[in-house]
């Protein structure tokens, strides 16, 4: 039984906007799943429908085998949601927000209190539990929403851009927290614009664009599709002209930076051989963009062309 099963999901908003054009998606139990897509692709709409904030137009969704229409309560109990936008009361304390959420899930106060201490603690907010939520920084507010989503210890945690606007250090610690949670058995679905995040966290990935799934595969598979990579070579001394690079597509960006596109079948050693024989010394080499990013842009490009 998959953790999440979406069949032919369609959504047309009242303003006639067709946000989802028939989406199929499966997320296995224990998975760490990324849902990627550009702005307005339909990620939040999909998530909103899964957790009961948006009415679907047609299609079916099952959460751990529970249909969201016929077994609404059972389905909802399995899900914890961290929304894209802040949606707690500004006039309540951190602890109050988390405890109330426990109450909405039918959790006894005593139990909720223990869990609040555990999760607010892990997320570094226990010391600030009695502070009004409006006094928290942006990153703290995101973490508060994570603690709130875990109060009923859901089998699946869905996070809609949890690390947007979170600094690097904090983002890393949030990743560690999520990896830990996933290893303890929680299925995790997240959307993100940081492709590096998806690449380092997620096992499986779906890419959505303009309301359609354009790719649904494992992260490994996806990256293996990458047939070319673009690298920057930083040179020790400036040069004025590039040597012939066996026909590789290349560009001198500035006197000490060379951009070279290398196909998967090409051998990268030849580049160094040519540089050596021309007395050009390379001090460092880096990817032009993250590997996933290139692929992502390619896929979206293809999708737009077929429209």
């Amino acid at each position, binding site marked *: 039984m998959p953790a999440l099963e979406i069949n032919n999901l369609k959504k047309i*908003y*009242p303003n006639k906007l067709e946000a989802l054009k028939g989406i199929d998606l499966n997320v296995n139990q224990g998975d760490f799943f990324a849902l990627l897509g550009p702005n307005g692709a339909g990620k939040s709409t999909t998530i*909103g429908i899964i*957790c*009961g*904030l*948006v*009415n679907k137009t047609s299609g079916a969704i099952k959460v751990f085998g529970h249909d969201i229409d016929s077994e*609404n*309560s*059972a389905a*909802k*109990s399995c*899900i914890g*949601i961290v*929304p894209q*936008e*802040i*949606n*707690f*009361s*500004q*006039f309540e304390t951190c602890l109050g*927000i988390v405890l*109330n*959420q426990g*109450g*909405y*899930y*039918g*959790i*006894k106060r005593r139990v909720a209190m223990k869990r609040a201490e555990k999760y607010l603690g892990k997320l570094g907010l226990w010391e600030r539990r009695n502070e009004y939520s409006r006094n928290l920084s942006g990153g703290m507010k995101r973490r508060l929403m994570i603690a*709130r989503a875990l109060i009923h210890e859901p089998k699946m945690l869905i996070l809609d851009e949890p690390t947007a606007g979170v600094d690097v250090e904090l983002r890393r610690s949030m990743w560690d927290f999520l990896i830990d949670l996933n290893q303890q058995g929680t299925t995790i679905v997240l959307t993100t614009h940081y492709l590096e995040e998806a690449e380092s966290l997620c096992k499986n990935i779906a890419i959505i664009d303009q309301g359609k799934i354009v790719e649904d595969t494992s992260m490994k598979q996806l990256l293996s599709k990458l047939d070319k990579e673009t690298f920057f070579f930083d040179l020790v001394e400036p040069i004025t002209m590039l040597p012939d690079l066996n026909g590789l597509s290349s560009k001198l960006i500035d006197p000490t930076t060379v951009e070279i596109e290398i196909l998967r079948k090409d051998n990268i050693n030849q580049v160094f051989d040519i540089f050596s024989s021309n007395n050009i010394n390379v001090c460092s080499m880096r990817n032009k963009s993250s590997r996933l990013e290139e692929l992502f842009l390619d896929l979206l490009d293809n999708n737009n062309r077929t429209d």
Partner: protein
Amino acid sequence: MPLQSLFIPFSTIVIKEVSRFMRIWVQTIVPPAISMTLYFVIFGSLIGPRIGTMNGFDYIDYIAPGIIMMSIINNAYANVVSSFYGAKFQRHIEEILVAPIPNFIILAGYVTGGVVRGFLVGMVVTIVALFFTDLHLHSFTITIAVVLMTSIVFSLAGMINAIFANKFDDISIIPTFVLTPLIYLGGVFYSIDLLPEFWQKVSAFNPILYMVNAFRYGMLGESDISITHAFIMLIIFTITLLIVSLQLLNRGVGIKS
């Protein structure tokens, strides 16, 4: 579904609702106490003696139940409309919508919040009234039953207003243009026997007339309308609004896109 799994969410909403209006008591409890004091001073003590009696009662005794009822109606309504609209506006209604809570529990929770505020303010205004006159109590049961049903009806009405509201204007338009006129024309300050026959008939469509008169009956044993008739009307209003608001919540009107 086990009862406890319904009771915990219900009590969570109620406690949250009550602590919300208690936290801002200067905005919620004090204003009705002040304005109702003014009513008692002006209409009761200053003008009242010149009016003399209304249906055999001193004017201040006659209007006291109406004034108490007015504050109950206003506060039950205001509590639900502002709290539920606020939850929509700040989006924390989503906290409740993602949880496995049946809609009737959400409704019951918010309505109970409105009822508690209605009772509390009603009590405060009653205490204020005691400074100006001796209150009678004809029937405790009828009095409490009327207060309960009235505050339920207006909590539900506030809920429906909040469901349809898209901006803050929308939650003050109805109270200003509908609720206030209905209250003033609902026999708070006069007996409808004073009205020409035509306006007496029009008044029969005003739900507040039944509430004020039933409440007055509970306190004074005096009413323009038969008490059975008033209760039947109250029950009809309660059930109708209950069905309408539950339907709206089930369809997700105003809360789900």
